[in-house]
């Protein structure tokens, strides 16, 4: 349904996208995860038909989007990072306004408005001015506006940045609803733990794809054994381990350490060093790597 080949975009001296290839051919939630400056926004804007690439091919539902960006707007709904709601219009008026922009026939607008208000749970607030909504509600309203023309594909640019975990979960509930209704979703996020919820994940860094696949595929790319260790004196243990392995292999959290090791033998050696320093290990478990661990590893390989 979406096919991208050799997509490139440059701003001044900055090569924002350096040749992206991507095929998404089933109804899934597809996450594009990466830090600021990775190229997430540029990629989504190009897919939404509001920015032209320098080079590359894009096909969405059989339409050549590079030649005819306008056709993208018919099939995609796009939610930008800074959504542009009119603060003086009410919830219902904002949705209606976008319906007019997207040329939704009057006869259908009423029904869709009703359904959108229902599914976003914004019904009770339909007469409230957009400027007077909470952050989470504003975002839901923006999402309704992007859905008024019932797009087949939804493009969401960092919808949960600055949003607290509860509102974040509510938004994902809505995405699952949309997915069940047959809407394909591309969502960008800087949060690794959030990307883990998606059916497929693309790790983007400085305009290049670092890795791609579903969570299981990506986890199987992790070449080390990951351990979680709790010590009486975590910071001292951290210093000892850094002294042995360097700081690429160990991360210190408030009350525990994560170690990426090559073998169990290496673990046994470390345990000896830690015991020799008079520290007690309270618990030690092998754990499953998170996306952040995998991102770190792929970043090292890419260098």
């Amino acid at each position, binding site marked *: 349904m979406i096919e991208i080949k050799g997509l490139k975009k440059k701003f001044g001296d900055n090569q924002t996208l350096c040749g992206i290839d991507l095929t998404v051919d089933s109804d899934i*939630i597809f996450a594009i995860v*990466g*830090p*600021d*400056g*990775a190229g997430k926004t540029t990629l989504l804007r190009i897919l939404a038909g509001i920015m032209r690439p320098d080079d590359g091919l894009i096909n969405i539902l059989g339409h050549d989007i590079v030649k005819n960006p306008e056709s993208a707007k018919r099939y995609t709904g796009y939610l930008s990072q800074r959504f542009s709601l009119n603060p003086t219009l009410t919830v219902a008026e904002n949705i209606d306004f976008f319906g007019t922009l997207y040329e939704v026939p009057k006869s259908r607008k009423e029904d869709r408005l009703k359904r959108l208000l229902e599914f976003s749970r914004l019904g009770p607030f339909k007469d409230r001015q957009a400027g007077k909504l*909470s*952050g*989470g509600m504003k975002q839901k309203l923006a999402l309704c506006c992007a859905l008024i023309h019932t797009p087949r594909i939804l493009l969401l640019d960092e919808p949960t*940045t*600055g*949003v*607290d*975990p*509860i*509102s*974040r*979960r509510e938004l*994902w509930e809505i995405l*699952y609803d949309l997915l*069940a209704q047959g809407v394909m979703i591309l969502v960008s996020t*800087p*949060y*690794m*733990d959030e990307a*883990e*919820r*998606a*059916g497929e994940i693309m790790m983007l*860094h400085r305009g290049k794809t670092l890795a791609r696949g*579903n*969570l*299981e595929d990506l986890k199987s790319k992790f070449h080390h054994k990951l351990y979680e260790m*709790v010590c*009486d*004196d975590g*910071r001292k243990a*951290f210093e000892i381990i850094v002294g042995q392995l360097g*700081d690429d292999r160990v*991360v*210190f*959290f*408030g*009350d*525990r350490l994560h170690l990426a090791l090559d073998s169990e033998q290496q673990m046994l050696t470390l345990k000896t060093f830690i015991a020799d320093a008079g520290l007690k290990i309270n618990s030690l478990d092998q754990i499953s790597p998170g996306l*952040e661990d995998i*991102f*770190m590893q792929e*970043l090292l390989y890419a260098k």
Partner: protein
Amino acid sequence: MRNKSDSSDIAVSVRNMTKKFDGFTAVDNISFDVRRGEIFGFLGPNGAGKSTTIRILCGIIDITSGEGLIDGHSILKDQDKIKRITGYMSQKFSLYEDLTPYENLEFYGGVYGLDSRTRRSRIEWALNMSDLAERSDDLTSDLPVGYKQRLALGASLLHEPSILFLDEPTAGVDPSSRRSFWDLIYRQAQSGVTVFVTTHYMDEAEHCDRIAFIDSGKLIRLDSPGTLKRADLREDIIEIMADDWMKAFNALREKKESFGEVSLFGTRIHLRFTGDDFGDIESYLIGNNIHVESIRPVPPSLEDVFVALLNPYKNTEASS
């Protein structure tokens, strides 16, 4: 070791702190202590009162009632002193993009009123700490995000504050820059700087020694991330793997009221189980012609704890 608890080790002490704005209670009778050199996380939904609390602790706004001591200085009487011993860094960095790193630090040195000798040595320290000694004459706008972030940290530490406030300090930076940033923060904490972190980022919260959950101005819970995850979840998190996971997921969503909230992690389904026996889940799925491959409890994430702790409050707020 930072587990001593005699009073000289207390950097921040707050008792019954309340702040009202026009009848609205932003901070509601909060009490807590923070140890010197502790990394203290401040978590809560948008509008919970986190920023107000931090503005009070920085000496920027007054409290309505209660008392607080920052390094032994009263937040009621010694606000000027408190401004000098606190540092603040936000995700927005407050750096001048069209100045060089050196000029930015020079500017902050002036703001903090450092004499020229101290200023020179502190700028040199900050440039080394942020790994910018070689790039001190580049334009700040040309620096990668990770460097800007370390520069902002250097600027907030220029006057050697004893308390450092970090507001979502690593949002949007890549994981390797984030990890080196936290190494710097641990080093600061080691040398006795007390660090306050507010964030929506569970990855950041995991780095804290203790986490305070704030909601509607109240302190709901205060403990270490490990303890919170072990002790604070009434529901079990059940992980379900099924051959047709999408079908299983949709089937479970229909039973949300009796089984609990479901979410997807790749092809795995997580259920915040509110029932008694998770055999019920299995029979329900089998009844829907779904083959269950595995079903087992998994350790909760910090986000699970966040949602479990704060959701009840959110619901009462929405209905009122």
